[in-house]
């Protein structure tokens, strides 16, 4: 009897092991799929994103926040702040952060390669006949038309983000947003100073209530 029980127990354990194996396999497969989706999306975004870093951030927001729902809007904005305040290209930094968040180290590698591959290939090819490309009137007109589209995409995303900031009904956030915009757009103040100023306000806000608490 005892022996039978033992055997039963063992086979139970065996089954469980098989199950856990299956589960890790499924996890691996899921991870693989996730990595492939991540790679294809960064590749796609990077291929079609003309212009500076903030353009790619708006595209990433549309894709990863609105479509895939991998991260939420706040995280996306936090990541943009981190990407902007670190040295290097915003697009690459943002890819590192999103890749890291979604799939850890492999995710980071995949997202970075997806982001830099298209410009690398395009530039390598173009460097051989760049005068023909840069001097071509058709190309210039095409790119000029695309700029109108880029502006529309960015302002569409801004409309959504700004609307959410206003919905929060925090006076401080709205003031930061408006002064930040005036500082950047009208007075052309360097981005780094604006980010520093906003962080300082955040630090003050973190310290002040605590002091009041000690007093009372």
């Amino acid at each position: 009897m005892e022996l039978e029980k033992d055997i039963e127990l063992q086979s139970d354990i065996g089954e469980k092991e098989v199950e856990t194996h299956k589960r890790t396999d499924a996890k691996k497969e899921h991870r693989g799929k996730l990595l492939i989706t991540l790679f294809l999306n960064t590749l796609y975004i990077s291929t079609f994103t003309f212009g500076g870093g903030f353009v790619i951030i708006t595209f990433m927001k549309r894709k990863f926040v609105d479509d895939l729902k991998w991260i939420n809007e706040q995280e996306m904005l936090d990541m943009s702040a981190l990407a902007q305040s670190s040295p290097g290209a915003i697009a690459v930094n943002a890819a590192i952060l999103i890749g890291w968040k979604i799939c850890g180290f492999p995710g980071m590698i995949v997202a970075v390669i997806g982001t830099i591959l298209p410009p690398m290939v395009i530039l390598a090819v173009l460097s051989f006949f760049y005068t023909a490309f840069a001097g071509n009137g058709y190309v210039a007109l095409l790119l000029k038309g695309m700029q109108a589209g880029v502006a529309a995409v960015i302002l569409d995303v801004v409309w959504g983000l700004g609307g959410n900031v206003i919905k929060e009904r925090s006076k401080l956030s709205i003031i930061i947003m408006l002064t930040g915009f005036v500082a950047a757009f009208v007075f052309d103040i360097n981005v780094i100073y604006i980010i520093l100023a906003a962080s300082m306000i955040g630090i003050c806000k973190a310290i002040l209530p605590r002091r009041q608490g000690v007093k009372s």
Partner: protein
Amino acid sequence: MPLIQSQVVETHGWLSMNEFINLITIAEMTPGPIGVNAASFVGTRIAGMGGAIIATFACILPSCFIVSLLAYIYGRYKQVSALQNILACLRPAIVALIASAGFSILGTVVFNGNHIQLSSVDWIGIGTFIVAFIVLRKWKWNPILVMSLCGVVGLGLNLLMGGIPK
């Protein structure tokens, strides 16, 4: 950009100033971050495909380290209230910066990079912008599709109005 120039043109003499100006034009016209574009361009000119790969990786390696460190810190201390406060103040600032980037692109579209006056207004540019914006907001079209269509429509309309470009 000035940093790249001093290294590439003055210190190493890899490109002439003229070539460098072309590089900037192309780096701004093609997709991808300018730093990476410049690195691949210079790399290819000097050492072919291998040069492009090495230059690009060297260009992003430092930011990889720094950003992963920041990502780690962010993930670890995200819940701490002090950092929460700072992030809460940074978010509206980032929205403002994105808005500013969008409006300055819109500015170059509308005024063609000229002075702000009515005569230099590009009506085709404004028209495509407005249509693109409505399509994006109301029907949530794919942004990359909208952008490409804008390019084609802009090219077509400009050709119809002004003839073949020089």
